[in-house]
């Protein structure tokens, strides 16, 4: 006997299926974002008493100035760069052209410790590590706060690209190989991308269990590796239509969803979920990229000016502004943008809705 379907029931099932479909496969409707200036502060060298102790402190660097501030715009320390400065959220090493003794100062301008080093310092943004890179780029070492050597690694070729995250160092080498070292300096993974007429490494990025590398000349290649079953393996490779002969900007967005890489007059965005590729046109020479909270900010230099561009990821162009100076600092923390321009630090919030 054939059972008769109730039309009301059929309508309800259809409705549920449709609703489920939209939840499972949402259609990208675009985002309504707007920029809201919050404050602007003048930058001048000195020690300041930032008042909000509970707010996270972060750093800025613009031209000869560097310093620390919080989200409310309270400065803790602003100083002038000697030759260069290594900055992390907890402190800095302001160093001279010829180094021997380096001094670590905390983010409020207080001396913490000094250590001997003939290399130039690198401080990862997060964590307490202190690294130095040999001045000939043929070695890297990690020191403790007493200046004692924890480990070192030397190479018969200069380092061309470096990414230090909490647990790993990803090191690109001129000879065309890259190494992933753990925090003991031990080799976790190495790879030599092949298939180009000239092999070299031009850019590296890492995020959790993922590595991205730009390598080679003719053709230039993007390769992505993922850690599966305790070891890394290539999962994606693509030839690029670029011909860079210098280090290339490449980084993951803060959530790891997108890979952002520099292209000629564009920024390429690769969605790691489905490997879809997008392109956001830019003008001039790319100076800075930052991707957090599904927002991509780029600074590019044209003549003596800077183009400040805000996009929603993956490819929604939202805002573009020409700034008549090439010395611009950009830092993005979640939905907050910090721009240092002409001796001032400005906070702009990217709001949705």
């Amino acid at each position, binding site marked *: 006997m054939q059972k008769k379907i109730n039309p009301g029931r059929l309508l309800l099932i259809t409705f549920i299926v449709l609703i489920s479909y939209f939840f499972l496969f949402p259609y990208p409707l675009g985002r309504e974002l707007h920029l809201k200036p919050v404050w602007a502060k003048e930058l001048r060298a000195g020690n300041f008493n930032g008042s909000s102790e509970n707010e996270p402190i972060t750093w800025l660097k613009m031209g000869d100035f560097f310093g620390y501030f919080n989200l409310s715009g309270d400065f803790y320390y602003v100083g002038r760069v000697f030759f260069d400065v290594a900055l992390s959220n907890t402190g800095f090493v302001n160093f001279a052209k010829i180094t021997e003794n380096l001094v670590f100062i905390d983010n409020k301008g207080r001396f913490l410790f000094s250590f001997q080093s003939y290399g130039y310092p*690198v401080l990862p943004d997060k964590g307490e590590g202190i690294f130095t890179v040999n001045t000939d*780029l043929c070695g890297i070492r990690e020191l403790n706060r007493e200046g004692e050597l924890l480990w070192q690694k030397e190479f018969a070729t200069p380092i061309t690209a470096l990414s230090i995250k909490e647990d790993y160092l990803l090191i690109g080498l*001129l000879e065309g190989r890259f190494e992933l070292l753990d925090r003991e300096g031990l080799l976790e993974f190495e790879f030599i991308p092949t298939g180009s007429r000239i092999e*070299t490494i031009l850019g590296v990025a890492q995020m959790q269990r993922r590595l991205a590398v730009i390598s080679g000349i003719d053709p230039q290649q993007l390769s992505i590796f993922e850690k599966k079953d305790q070891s890394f393996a290539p999962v994606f490779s693509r030839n690029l239509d670029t011909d860079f002969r*210098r*280090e290339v*900007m490449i980084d993951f967005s803060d959530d790891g969803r997108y890979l952002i890489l520099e292209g000629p007059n564009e920024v390429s965005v690769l969605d790691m979920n489905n490997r879809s590729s997008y392109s956001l046109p830019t003008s001039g020479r790319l100076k800075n990229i930052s991707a957090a909270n599904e927002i991509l900010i780029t600074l590019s230099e044209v003549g003596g000016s800077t183009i400040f561009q805000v996009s929603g990821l993956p490819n929604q162009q939202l805002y573009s502004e020409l700034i008549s100076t090439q010395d611009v600092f950009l830092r993005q923390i979640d939905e907050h943008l910090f721009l240092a321009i002409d001796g001032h630090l400005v906070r702009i919030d990217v709001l949705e809705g």
Partner: protein
Amino acid sequence: MRNLFIFIYLLLSFTVNALEWPVEKVILTATFAESRQDHFHTGIDLGGGEQTIFPISPGEVVFAYEKRSDYSSLPVGLGNFVVLQHQESIRSIYCHLKDDTLKRSLTEFSLQDPLGTIGDSGHSHGKHLHLSLIDSEMKTIINPFLVLPPLTDRQAPVIRRLFMKGEEDLVELREGDELKTGEVHILAEIYDLREDVSFIWKLAPYKILLYVNGKEVNQMSFNFLQAEDGRLVLSDSREGYGELYVSDWIYKLGSLDLTPGETHMQVFSRDFAGNVSQREYFFQVKNSN
């Protein structure tokens, strides 16, 4: 064997196009594998003020960096620099170029195309060109003297002092000394000298040899550096920086078990032009007790 192979390979690589010095007026201010406080000097330094730099051989740009315009994920002690790819897998690196002189419009350079001007960008005590040669396939850093035209040099290296280091004390060795039995480390202060200046400007020698009672105990040649177990070592003797240098011009020549009787020790040092200096010591070794 490996070194011989590398050397033959280098010779073959550069047979077609002979290499040229990268500057017109060659003033050598530092040599290959000198001590740099805590690591080897990985090239040679050439002074002579703001000279125009040319490629040592026709080549193609692999990598370049200028502090004023290029992004870098790490601090660059090499200053403004450019890397050229030559025949096979040989790459030459020209460092510390003067700001805004690096020629970026070309990717292929002939011998006559200027690369830039000598400067003091990056980790530099004064205007000079740091020139490095690497073999990206053999994974070695090459002493540029091996492949560049020879320089005139008539002065032999100086073997200034020898030291013996026992368990506790460090003593300077003198002719006719009486020493006690036991293991000692032989240290030597050795350097070559620039001929073009009237003051003392030290350079590293090319070879150091230690003989004891007519037998070769150790030989160090500054031909190639290669990475081994995460450190750079001289490819002949497999010695890393810490195993070779006590300080800038004091070398560890090896250890010796002194036995009773007369000992004859000879130290030879050679520069790249073939000038050799020698120092020898005769000393008596007596039982410790």
